[in-house]
């Protein structure tokens, strides 16, 4: 790690001000993505703006027909939230499947989404539920937010404040864990909210999280595993690495989508 200046603002305004004055500064949330790359000296921000003392940035709330999760809410707190488990247990499956207890007790939803790791779990939930990402400047629909691996629609100095998830009657997440890291080798989030059916896939695509339109079409008849029996997606555009080939990842997308659908029906 290189030396850096450390700021601890207590309001979002202050944090935004610090970012404006230090263009190369980075926000620090749980630090579980940022600090490892800093330790390896692959990232070299001259300043960190720590969000942990900013008030009102964490918690899980029911607001109308949405669940609203503060950006600084830790994965463990989302997974264990009574509010969420009652309103939409399918979403609670996502943070519950992340990494290990240490990671779940530090990592945050805001950090995960801002980072947009192609194997991260939350992006699948955001896209799979049509969430809205609320920043200090604007609201961004999930469909517009994730723009490729490790890249998002966030602009310089923009801070995620909360994420709003519309409540879907039926939804579930199924993940095949990367054996070493615990990230998603492939993860599939499925949801049905009225006529809106979504199948979002993380871990598989070389361009990050994506929706599977062919599955969504097929599921319009009936939101059940049977409707996509035997269906698969092409291997082109899938990631290949030592743990999984593109063909295998494409195959898993179908398998996990069916399993998620079975869970959503249960």
């Amino acid at each position: 790690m290189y030396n850096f200046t450390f700021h601890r603002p207590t309001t979002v305004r202050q944090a935004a001000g610090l970012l404006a004055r230090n263009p190369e500064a980075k926000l620090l949330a749980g630090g579980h993505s940022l600090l490892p790359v800093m330790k390896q000296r692959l990232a070299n921000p001259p300043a960190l703006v720590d969000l942990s003392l900013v008030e009102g940035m964490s918690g899980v709330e029911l607001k109308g027909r949405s669940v609203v999760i503060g950006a600084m809410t830790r994965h463990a707190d989302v997974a264990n939230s009574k509010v969420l488990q009652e309103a939409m247990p399918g979403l609670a499956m996502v943070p519950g499947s992340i990494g290990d207890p240490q990671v779940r007790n530090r990592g945050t939803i805001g950090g995960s989404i801002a980072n947009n790791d192609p194997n991260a779990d939350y992006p699948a939930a955001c896209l799979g539920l049509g969430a809205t990402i609320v920043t200090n400047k604007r609201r961004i629909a999930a469909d517009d937010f994730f723009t490729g691996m490790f890249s998002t629609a966030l602009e310089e100095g923009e801070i995620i404040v909360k994420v709003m998830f519309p409540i879907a009657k039926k939804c579930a997440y199924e993940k095949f864990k990367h054996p070493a890291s615990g990230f998603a080798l492939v993860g599939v989030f499925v949801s049905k909210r009225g006529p809106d059916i979504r199948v979002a896939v993380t871990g598989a695509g070389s361009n990050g999280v994506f929706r599977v339109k062919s599955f969504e079409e097929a599921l319009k008849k009936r939101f059940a595993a049977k409707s996509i029996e035997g269906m698969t997606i092409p291997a082109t555009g899938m990631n290949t690495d030592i743990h999984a080939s593109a063909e295998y990842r494409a195959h898993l997308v179908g398998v996990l989508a069916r399993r998620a659908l079975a869970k959503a029906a249960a």
Partner: protein
Amino acid sequence: MSATGIGAAVRRKEDFRFITGKGQYTDDVVRPGETRAVFVRSPHAHAKIAKIDASAAKTMPGVVAVLTGADLAGDKIGNLICGWMIHSKDGTPMKMAPHPALASGKVNHVGDAVAVVVAETLGQARDAAEKVKVDYEVLPAVVNPAKAKSGTQIHEIAPKNTIYEWSLGDAKATDAAFANAKHVTKLDIVNNRLAPIAMEPRAALAEYDAGTDQLTLWNTTQNPHVSRLVIAAFVGMAPEHKLRVIAPDVGGGFGSKIFIYPEEVVCLWAARKVRRPVKWTSDRMEAFLTDAHGRDHVTHAELALDANGKILAMRVKTIANLGAYMSTFSSSVPTYLYATLLSGQYDIPQIYCEVDAVYTNTVPVDAYRGAGRPEATFVVERLVEVAARELGLEPPELRKRNFVKSFPHQTPVIMAYDAGDYNASLKKAMEIGDVKGFNKRKRESARNGKLRGIGYSTYIEACGLAPSQAAGSLGAGVGLWESAEVRVNPTGSVEVLTGSHSHGQGHETTFAQLVSQRLGIPIDNVSIVHGDTDKVQFGMGTYGSRSGAVGMSAIVKALDKVEAKAKKVAAFMLEAAEGDIEFKDGKFTVAGTDKSAAFGDVALNAYIAHKFTGAELEPGLKETSFYDPTNFTFPAGCHICEVEIDRETGKTDIVNWTAVDDFGTVINPMIVEGQVHGGIAQGVGQALLEGVVYDANGQLVTGSLMDYTMPRAHDLPSFNLGFTETKAPSNPLGIKGCGEAGAIAAPAAVINAITDALGTEQIAMPATANAVWSALQRATPRAAA
């Protein structure tokens, strides 16, 4: 059996300090004026060093020195060596290339050390290391051992990158047996390359005392005396008596801390140069790049059988990747620790094995838990299982037909098995593992959409390394005995100084159990001292499951001498003839009388020396012994693995594991079970999860724990363990050794189970979900019988 004696599950004495964070590891040792070393490492697998420019680095804040290979050569610091001579079939000696502690002229693997920066703080050393400019002329890299012979030559001394072409056994007789065979089973096997990943990374702290011209090295080593010997006698750092090596608490080794590495040599040299203590501690990524890896064999193996399933002969051809340099014991691993075990538990009349060892542009490969024996067991147990399937025999049945049943048994590959009962462990394992109920379980799995398979591994290993004369005749540069010194204090408490070294094995407990039982004193009155060349007499250290069989035998010998001397003292105290003194349960008695003296009183009298004159007896009670084993020991057993495979994802779950091991005498069953658990976990890791991957340019792909898959608790079932016991006849306690068995037995059991479920033999390790799924696309899974 006493509550703390041999056979008792005594809680580990050392765990209090480990669990409460009071362990003292090398990195915890802090010396006044200490500096930190950071190595500049090659980013290329194979390159010429055109130029090193350290001028900018030298002016960085806090920098004490920047040193390169040229400085090292200038100071006449010698190369690292491989201490086991192997000769090729044609009689030529192995081609040991120079291995300087800092590269000179050329780098040969990613992570090869090019320069070292010594600075006031770690941060300053890192900053300066980034400023060392090295110009490389990149050369083509040799990565695949199977193609090493046709790759760019790495070392001048080794044409075709070949270190040796060695063989064992009678080729002609083996070919003749094959010619008469009814059935031949053939397999191509890759034994995957593994990273050792001890929990504590390697570290070295060196200090030079200019007043006494004395060097001290704190180091993560499994064998401090061997380190000192090599660094003194071969590297030429300092005379042996001017170098002290201390191995404080060491957090795991699995073999990787046997070897003498460049970093400790450089720290010693730099400490003397800058007249300040120099510390280096590896981080995890550096460990992946520089710790010696294990395994990495490419093998073709054949088994010849007659019509009745009797094995006639075995033929094996192996290419062993030794990496960029020959590490300390690397040459012995794929030869005398491998081919000598190819007879397994079986009576095989003829075996012929050829091993070609090659250089590649990868980190050196050397002993890793099991060292050669897991590779041998994998060959033998895969061949036998596949042969049974091909012949339509139950795999246990084929094994039974071929087991060695009478002892001693001379194999065609050097080893003379002295005791064992292979039927007994197989039978017991089949009972504990409820093999009878397997078909029912398989049908249940099928109802849940899962494939189920069962796999056996009846392994053997040679432990208790090793009779020195035999080892010497096979090329070892050292003897493989062990030493012990038992110091009885005047108050009757005891210190045992042992040449063995504990880095997780629990010697402070098990060795104390032996002393407690033998002297009849409380276990808390015994302490075990190890890991410091200034305290302990020369010893050979811990590896090859030798500390029980060899290390404890040395203690037994010293205890014999202590008892003999104490009897003399007691005779004076009790005014009896020495021959009439008996010793039992901590008490000396005079035969046929009620006169007695407690062990503590005798100890006191040995030191106050009031009951005898100097002419009659030397005062004191302290004895030393050196124990050289008369044979290897042969732990053996049967592991049975049951797997369930998710047909859709290819994910394998181990649902049942039975291990019945014959370790001879068991000193502490709790510790032994722990060793078995850990060994199986490592073996399962090899079979399902682990595998070092280099890309075609020699870049390490699996360079972190986010990429390299270590086994975790959730990857393993609860193990069903059992023991059978035949005593090892070659040592006084009958111990065979238990440290490596799990890692040796497990991979074959797992792969035999997976291939049983899949109905194809074509699956490589690690059998990842992807690999199993791919195999399933080609296979017709076996149905329940």
